[in-house]
């Protein structure tokens, strides 16, 4: 019964979405107040209905109700509680429902918090959200219904893929979806403006907070996913340029560009058409990502991974939404942005830097897209099969992104309207000199004179020092007496920390990336108990192994004692787990973590040579690797800080 109520709520939500996607739009166009007024309650009702559906599915997963096909296929009664819970989105159907729930949540958010918006604009935005809702609810109900029943329920389910039974993977999808779906609002705002044929000066001001929210969720989601890949896959990499990762990276790049162009639009009341186009494309990339991951197009070598129906459906959704939006854009954008031309512009200015930022970020987005689909295109034209992997991206991305990174500290220090070059140079001179010195030091000190690492360290220092210069400008460091500084720091409005943290965080992240890619060391050895291995100043002794059992797995556990300078400092216990229900094995790395670097141990199979059984052990030392995710976290915090910017402040910014 309860299951059916969830299913029914989803169908009702579909009906509500149908109304929400038509009547308010009609009302806004024809100025019928009664229809306009329907938007807000419809959006809220849709959210409540989907919340109920999601809650029902969650309860069923927790109860292990195997009369639901989805629960049978993806859960198991012996699974720890937390993974029975997160198993809801550990599969295609459930994650789609979460996607839709979040879409409705954003809609309800606009309905609830967008009080200062004109009713007609709000009705249009919610109407467009309704259209997206209709399409995805139809997708869910007709091709991937989470509430399908089994006629004869089995006694036990088949479990959840063990590599997904992990805390990081429990939070990774919701964060990622909050990001993807969040960009739907930027899309809806753009389409709403195009539909109405006019754009309010406050338009960008309403778009930006939601875009920030989406951006920071996506940033966190990608960071968590990368951290998970790092420790769970057991080979110490953090980013593989895999199509699935690219699917999340493209909207991130485009969304970052959008944040910056929306800043120009909000502040200077220009660049509307570009910001709208970017908003449409960012959300298009979010849907395309969903399509790429779920349709099997990119993994056509795997016969079983394809599901053409779903793929075609999402492709149709993409066509309808993005095609429609772009058509509207082509018809209306020129008329809308006629006001743009009257805004005086000077290339050497904050907006000049922001637009240049957009040139590079848009090109970077296109590059990832190109690399992801190029093999498909070549294949489709019968020109053969090629691979586009990490070496391509490394070769193209470094020259493409370096100018952007060089620009990053300069942007926040230049003035709106027109900026003089010399004061900016003066402010950044010390940072520049230090960064160059840092890079040169790396070049001289490293054994092979690693140019790439030198460039990376230089850029990282440039960004971090640039962020400090940004901060010192904001607290007026040079004119404030020393005693007043702490007070100034505390008094600095939170939103001012946005660019400092986001830009500085990227510098921190680059430091981590360079550390682990340039200076990683590795030992691979087949060992018997008592063997000692030396790596980067650590002495690692293999003490032996034991068998252990977890809640739903058994494992062989290696015991390693770690000494540094003759002193025992830690014991690491990597495992090779066997999940009994799923009949799959995983490797669990053991990592000794500190800021200077991670000592990372995994164990593999046993080998036998000359009758002696030994264990294959792989040990890495990843210098500075933690800074990758610390940097990501700092960047997301920058997003949180920027989010505190109140609408009122933006208006007063504009007038002064």
């Amino acid at each position, binding site marked *: 019964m309860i299951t059916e109520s969830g299913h029914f709520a989803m169908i009702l939500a579909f009906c509500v979405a149908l109304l929400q996607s038509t009547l308010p739009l009609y009302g806004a166009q024809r100025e019928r107040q009664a229809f306009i007024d329907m938007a807000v309650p419809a959006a809220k009702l849709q959210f409540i209905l989907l919340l109920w559906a999601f809650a029902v599915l969650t309860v069923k997963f927790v109860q292990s109700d195997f009369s639901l*096909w989805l629960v*049978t*296929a993806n859960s198991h009664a012996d699974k720890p509680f937390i993974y029975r819970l997160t198993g809801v989105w*550990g*599969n295609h*159907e459930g*994650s789609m429902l979460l996607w839709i729930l979040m879409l409705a949540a954003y809609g309800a958010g606009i309905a609830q918090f967008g009080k200062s918006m004109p009713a007609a604009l709000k009705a249009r935005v919610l109407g467009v959200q309704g259209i997206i809702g209709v399409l995805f609810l139809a997708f869910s109900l007709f091709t991937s219904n989470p509430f399908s029943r089994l006629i004869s329920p089995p006694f036990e389910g*088949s479990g959840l*893929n063990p*590599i997904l039974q992990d805390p990081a993977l429990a939070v990774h999808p919701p964060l990622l979806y909050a990001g993807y779906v969040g960009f739907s609002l930027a899309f809806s705002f753009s389409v709403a403006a195009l539909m109405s044929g006019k754009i309010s000066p406050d338009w960008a001001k309403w778009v930006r907070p939601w875009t920030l929210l989406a951006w920071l969720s996506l940033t966190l989601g990608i960071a968590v996913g990368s951290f998970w890949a790092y420790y769970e*896959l*057991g*080979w110490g990499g953090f980013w*593989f340029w895999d*199509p*699935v990762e690219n699917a999340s990276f493209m909207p991130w790049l485009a969304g970052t560009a959008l944040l910056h162009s929306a800043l120009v639009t909000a502040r200077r009341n220009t660049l509307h058409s570009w910001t709208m186009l970017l908003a449409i494309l960012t959300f298009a990339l979010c849907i395309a990502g969903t399509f790429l*991951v*779920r*349709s099997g197009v990119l*993994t056509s070598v*795997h016969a*079983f*991974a394809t599901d053409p129906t779903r793929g075609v459906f999402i492709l149709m959704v993409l066509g309808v939404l993005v095609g429609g939006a772009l058509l509207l854009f082509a018809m209306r954008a020129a008329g809308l942005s006629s006001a743009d*031309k009257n*805004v*005086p*512009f000077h*290339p050497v200015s904050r907006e000049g830097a922001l*637009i*240049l930022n957009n*040139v*590079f970020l*848009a*090109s*970077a987005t*296109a*590059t990832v897209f*190109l690399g992801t689909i*190029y093999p498909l295109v*070549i294949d489709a034209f019968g*020109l*053969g*099969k*090629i*691979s*586009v*992997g*990490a*070496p*391509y991206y490394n070769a*193209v991305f470094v020259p*493409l992104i370096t100018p952007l990174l060089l620009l990053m500290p300069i942007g926040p220090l230049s003035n709106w309207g027109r900026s003089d070059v010399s004061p900016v140079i003066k402010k950044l001179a010390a940072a520049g000199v230090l960064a160059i010195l840092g890079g040169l030091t790396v070049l001289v000190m490293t054994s092979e004179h690693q140019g790439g690492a030198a460039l990376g360290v230089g850029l990282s220092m440039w960004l971090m020092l640039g962020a400090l210069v940004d901060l010192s400008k904001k607290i007026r460091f040079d004119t404030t007496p020393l005693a007043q500084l702490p007070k100034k720091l505390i008094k600095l409005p939170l939103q001012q920390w946005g660019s400092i943290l986001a830009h500085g965080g990227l510098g921190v992240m680059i430091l981590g990336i360079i550390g682990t890619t340039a200076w990683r060391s590795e030992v*691979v050895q*087949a060992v018997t108990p008592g063997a000692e291995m030396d790596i980067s100043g650590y002495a690692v002794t293999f003490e032996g192994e034991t068998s252990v059992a977890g809640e739903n797995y058994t494992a062989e556990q290696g015991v390693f004692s770690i000494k540094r300078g003759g002193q025992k400092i830690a014991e690491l216990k990597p495992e090779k787990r066997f999940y009994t229900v799923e*009949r*799959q094995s995983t*490797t669990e790395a053991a990592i000794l973590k500190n800021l200077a670097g991670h000592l990372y141990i995994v164990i*593999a199979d046993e*080998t036998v040579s000359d009758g002696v059984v030994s264990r294959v052990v*792989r040990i890495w030392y990843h210098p500075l690797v933690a800074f990758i995710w610390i940097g990501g976290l700092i960047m997301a915090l920058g997003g949180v800080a920027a989010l505190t910017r109140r609408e009122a402040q933006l208006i007063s910014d504009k007038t002064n």
Partner: protein
Amino acid sequence: MIWPNDMVVHLMTLKAISQKAIFLILACWLLSLPAFAISPGEAFDDDKLEARARALSMELRCMVCQNQSIDDSDAPLAADLRRLLREQIKAGKSDDEILDFIEDRYGEFALLKPRFDIKNAPLWALPFLLVIIGIFFMRSFFRNAPKIKQD
């Protein structure tokens, strides 16, 4: 179909009812890489040669895996390729000769970094072309905008 890990196939029959695109993509991608690539005894004693071998392995695709280099993969085929690569290095061939040799044998699919040739021209040129086009547009945008008054 050759699989690095026959468990994947085994799994397929076992979990036949739960074949859902995303997680199987993930599953097979991940199952093909349980941790181990280069095994003990494979490596050269000479550090310089070994560094070359590692750098080259990172540019070669494990043909049976999902977007993985032979440096990262523990598939038997990847191990074969690594051995082949080291034999070639031992025979004194240059990096380019080795890449050519492998391309002749396995096709361009084996190279993770596509060749600079006419077929791949868009792939290599477009990113930088886009920047140039972008800057060009930006210039025209600034040129058309009314000039800001000098204070």
